[in-house]
């Protein structure tokens, strides 16, 4: 069993890093989708 600081720092670095990376990926995908399927006025 790892000590609590190894656990805590791992959670902070991997957990927060993983969350940020995932949201950056989401952000890039959404930017790409907006370019592939641009908004057209007729959709109104």
């Amino acid at each position: 069993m790892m000590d609590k600081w190894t656990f805590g720092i791992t959670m902070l670095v991997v957990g927060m890093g993983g969350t940020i990376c995932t949201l950056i990926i989401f952000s890039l995908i959404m930017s790409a989708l907006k370019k592939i399927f641009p908004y057209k006025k007729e959709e109104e």
Partner: protein
Amino acid sequence: MFDAMMGGISGLVAGFVHLHWSNVVMMCIGGVLLYLGIKKDFEPLLLVPIGFGCIIVNIPLADLMEKEGFLRIIYDAGVITELFPLLIFVGIGAMTDFRPVLENPYTFLLGAAGQFGIFLTLLLALALGFPYKDAVTIGIIGACDGPTVIYVASQYAQHLLGPVSVAAYSYMSLVPVLQPPIMRVLTTQKERVTVMKTHQKTVSKTTAMLFPIIITIIGGLIAPKGLPLLATIMLGNLMKESGAVSRLTKASENEISNIVTLLLGISIGATMSGPVFVKPTTIVILCLGLVAICLDTVCGVLFGKVLYYVTGGKVNPLIGAAGISAFPMSARVVQKEGQKYNKKNYLLMHAMGANAGGQVGSVMAAAVMLSVLKGMGII
């Protein structure tokens, strides 16, 4: 005959005899929750059933949370099975408009910054001696998202379900009180008056429909342990954006959400039995929850300041405070604060983007956390 009468009378006073001082304390706390919900309009849909559940579970000898007790049946059916938080997420997805974050995808990053409190509070909880799973459950209060908190607690720390749920919902309702002072302390007058340009509607229906599908697949692949959370919120959103199943969307927004909120609220209240709840650990958890939500706001605003400088003053750092999951309350707080300093400033749509990003961010943070725990062999 006298003995029989005395026996009968003793049955009528037994409730008073078995009343523990901690039951009385919890009844008072239930009363406070009712007051906040009814009189102060703080999250009444949840605080009223939680407060009432808290009062009735502290009446001795009613056995509401014993086997066969009606609260135990509801609790086992919906909380232990994680069904209630997931059903609520379908409703939240159906009610949430993610277009503001799709219009400005960079606001996803504000949603990420708003999750720092989760992990910093986890460290604090570990430092205070909480076991791993308990520390994770306490940290997740920083998600500012009741269903996520309940989902994680019901899986990994059921004994903390009452305190963490009460902390999450109470602090969510206190966002208008907690956030403004932090926003003022961390920003300068010049930053606060920054006017942000409003954008035209730029998201196509196809993009809005593909968003929940792609997020579910990519998010699920990255963090499979959190897929139930992500999938249910995105299912609700897909139903809303597609417009093809309006009956299901309306049912998710109204009937399902209302019934589940009632049952969930009273079940959470039922975990607040005096002898279990009234102990120093509960106070520590409530304090850590407060720290978590304040840290979320601090990190969100600080990241907003980074964006302010990176963009040459085009982003108002106040919108960083909306990168949490308290949707849409946090965005409204940002709008109100922004207008205090510049009456012509309309930050609402930008703040809604950050807030929607915070909604996705909190779910992803919980999902990533669970998957990292699984990878480390903790769960």
